[in-house]
């Protein structure tokens, strides 16, 4: 049987490593991209939230984060993205099947989004500044602390934003719109200098 072809990121061809814009000594921001091994959205029904949380905890081995927060362990990120809704990002494939077994439809719904998003990492001293320039959201740590998750948009491009630390964010960008998001990030990053790795 043929081997499964490589997955191609929607940013392939655009994402060229190097330093760009006003880089003097060190760049203001660094960008990198990755595809998720598995990205699965979990949706509970109003009465089943507790049960779904228990399933998630058991399958992922992670405590379930409160609204607008994420928990991480090893290769797994569990993000709260809406009422009774979570997004699980796992390095390994096969997550959807694993969860589906544990989560019958009377408890909730599972939707695979592995190919629907590309993750762009934005880090560096100017990360907050760059993101603020295009996303109408308060990025101050008091409003958006490390470990926080927010859903927002840059013009018509929706993004889920996970803040890993003071100067580090991951943007879950829609596959078909990733080009547009990348275009903006390069525009915004040029002023402070950006490094693509």
């Amino acid at each position: 049987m043929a081997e499964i072809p490589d997955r191609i990121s929607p940013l392939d061809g655009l994402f060229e490593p190097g330093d760009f814009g006003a880089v003097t000594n060190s760049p203001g921001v660094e960008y990198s991209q990755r595809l998720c091994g598995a990205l699965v959205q979990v949706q509970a029904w109003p009465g089943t939230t507790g049960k779904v949380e228990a399933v998630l905890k058991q399958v992922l081995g992670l405590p379930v984060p409160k609204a607008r927060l994420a928990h991480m362990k090893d290769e797994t990120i569990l993000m709260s993205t809406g009422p009774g809704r979570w997004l699980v990002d796992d390095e390994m494939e096969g997550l959807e099947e694993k969860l589906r077994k544990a989560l019958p439809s009377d408890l909730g719904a599972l939707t695979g989004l592995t190919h629907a998003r590309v993750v762009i990492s934005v880090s560096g001293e100017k990360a907050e500044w760059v993101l603020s320039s295009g996303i109408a959201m308060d990025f101050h740590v008091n409003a958006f602390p490390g470990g926080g998750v927010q859903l927002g948009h840059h013009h018509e491009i929706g993004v889920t934003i996970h803040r890993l630390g003071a100067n580090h964010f991951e943007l879950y960008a829609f596959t078909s719109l990733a080009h547009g998001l990348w275009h903006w990030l390069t525009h915004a990053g040029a002023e402070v200098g950006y490094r693509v790795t």
Partner: protein
Amino acid sequence: MSGFRLKAAETGGKALHFTFDGKSFVGREGDTLASALMANGVSIVGRSFKYHRPRGIFTAGSEEPSALVTLRSGGRHEPNVRATEIELYEGLEARSQNRWPSVRFDLMAVNQLAGKAFSAGFYYKTFMGPRRAGHKATQFWYFCEQFIRRAAGLGKGATSADPDTYSRMNAWCDVLVIGAGAAGIAAAGRAASAGARVIMCDERARGGGSLTGAPELLDGQPAAEWASDAMEELAELDNVTILTRTTVQSMFDGDTYLAVERVNDHRDEPKRHQPRQRAWTIRAASTVIATGAIERPIVFAGNDRPGVMLADAARRYAVEYGVAPGRAVAVFTNNDTGWLAARDMARAGVIVSAIVDVRADVQDDVRKAGEESRAEIFLGAAITGTRGWQELQGAHVRDFHEVSNTLGGKKRFIGCDCIAVSGGWSPAFHLTSQQGGKPQWDAELQAFLPGEASANWFGAGAMAGKFGLRNAFRTGEEAAVRALTQAGFGEGESSVPVIEGDAIDYAPAPVLEINSPGKSFVDLQHDVTADDVRLAHREGFVSVEHLKRYTTLGMATDQGKTSNVTGLAIMAQTRDMSIPEVGTTRFRPPYTPVALATLAGEQYGHLSTVRRTPMHDWHVANGAHMYANGPWLRPESYNAPGETVEQAYIREARKVRESVGLVDVSTLGKIDVQGPDAAEFLNRIYSNGFAKLPVGKARYGLMLREDGFLFDDGTTWRLDEHRFLMTTTTAGAGHVMEHLEYHRDVVWPDLKVALTSVSDEWAGVAVAGPKSRQVLAACVTKCDVSNEALPFMGVRTGEIVGIPVWIARLSFSGEMAYEVYCGANWGQALWDALMAAGEKHDIVPYGLEALSTLRIEKGHVAGPELNGRTTPGDLGLQGMVSSKKNFVGAVLNNRPAMQAEDRLQLVAIRSIDGQRIIGGSHLVKGTKDEPGLSEGHTTSTCFSPALNAYISLALLERGRARFGEKMYATNPVRDSHVAVEVINPHMVDPKGARMHG
């Protein structure tokens, strides 16, 4: 006016070279273009709007009505820049505007000769032209208008795109401070001390506001030095952001402000990688507005001559820029600040020849300031006229009686080349007025004050009518405390400096016009005179808003910052009313004009984002012309070299019917519908039944709007008992998603349904044609694609080159066809695999045109037929409207007019004689010359290779009863008139043998 650089300042600062109207000059670092021109003795800077009269420099800030120039060239060409605001840089290139051939000699100035006839409202009374019927009636005005349009206008616009970039920034804060004068600094300091997140904006290059030229000592330091230290200290705080060269332009609802940062306008061109300007959207919890006050003039005859300027501006040129505004300056005032301006100018080395005050007497300390200026003093006097050709040479002074507002005594002449006028101060509450705040008149200060707060803002300093430095600091801190409370903070600490210096009265005498013979200008840019105001009154345009619109007072680029109150005063006097009874016009955003590109921000040049399918690059590389379809770009056709779009799509469509083709359908909207109630939910959404759709089957569904008209269509696949994949039209995807979510959340919250857009998760390829099954059979594994195992409308999983896929046997083309979906990241690999598998059948990729041709031949409806005005019945889809269940739109779809027989109904037409039917045709009975009224129109038109004829789908009145009728498809705008036959829209394979086969 013949300004010059004052001795004391001659050596300071770096020399900067610049040109004005092609002539070279030298200015100094720290100059504005205005101060540099003044230092070089240039007095005529531009021409007025209507009469083309010479205009000089009137102010020293953003309120400037007169000194407008064109800056830079090429794509950076920018008209109507205020010389008083632009900071000088090496190589600056400026030109005067609205003049021909030159600014000193302008032929259009003949307009002045007809001055009286050109009075306000004159256009409305003439140019109607001779009375003629029909189209001709208006031609006369239309003819004249072109000349008028050419004479009007200020600078010229650029003709090429701008090479610069623009950016945006979003900011949140606890306390926004607008204005970094004394009040602003005090407010920011206080707010910062409480730990609040503070943003302070000032439109000038440096903070300090009026402190930069103030004669006072603060904590023993000169005010300017104190201010710059204070700004530095603030800037060092982590919780304070200071934005200079940043004008807060607009206040919007919810304490949202738009500020524009001129990041690079003080440079020749932007620093590399930097934007020219940045638009800040600032969302504040509370705001201190400390925008100061704007000085206003007194109106008198001949007051528009270059050399007449505001007193505080003249003072600032001398004190802050080291430039004398003239060789001999006369001050004309109705308040004490004029005297201080005279004194400060004299201290800086300017010769003040006279101080003319309308008041009969002044306080001792004011009189002392006058003495220090060594000027001749005229109390109870007024300037009644000026002398000079283009420039000012002197003024006439007469006695003036303040209470009776009358002139008397002999006319005396004073020689001066600059008149510095002060008519008092108008608080700058523009931002609060923008939100609809009603200003209130203060009779004591003779000024409008901001009035009640409409949002979480607090006024401070001169903006709130609290004049004087001591007041500014005190009210700045008070406002900060209120703002802090509003934002949920403590009160912070006070740090008001010790102030030594004048404590003067800012209240002026209520005199804003000296009525004497000669043209007295109220609005310097629009050439509105005091007589125009009186004429408006005579003609009944007495409401302020009528006055404004009839005379255009305050409608120029300065929006009347220095002329509104004087205009009101004249109207008030004419109506024998008080100023507040007359009222004031509303300020609107922006505060000062803003470059359009700044408001487009980073979007300048990049309208909406393109949605790209995973196969996008392949399409482009293979000759596809990409075509906008909703937010996506899709291949129109794949053109071989030399091939037209029509040739290409006919070839592609023919190939599909003969053999096989494939098309990228990744753009279809795809929605994951899951949950125990998913089937019930779909059953309520679609007009046809979905409750009993078996697992592993797809069904074509129709959705109606609430009002019973067709909304969208598509196939929905039952993947599982509780799991469906809905597809929508490409353009309709967003609206359908919202429609579903709305019904789930608002109408039926008790249904357990999860809705997720998976449009980006799946790449989709449709494989169509008699050989399609063979193509799949050649590459699909883990799935039997035989007719028995995968019948029409069946849905299965499988693999292609190891890629997991969904395969649904659906047909849009009427051929045997399949849609194959896989994870988007594999989309290209799937495409390649299908192309390879089809190679021996000569598989072709086909684009939108061929796709459309195939479905037209089959009579399938799409976007053009779902135009928002059609019902299922209109399109022959009544059979898909269930009468056994209730669904969205069911009831209103039953209204009699929507079921009527005389509606436009779907038909097809075929060209009878081989002539081409062109898109957008109407169906008529008459000849080309007399076509008659429209009975219907074409919707989707193509050449059909299957029928070997030009055909079209069409909507025709009572169409279904008219098959066989001969008509014309007329297209006068495209010059065609084609004989057609009305036929059944199911043109190819009406029984469906091919797709079921």
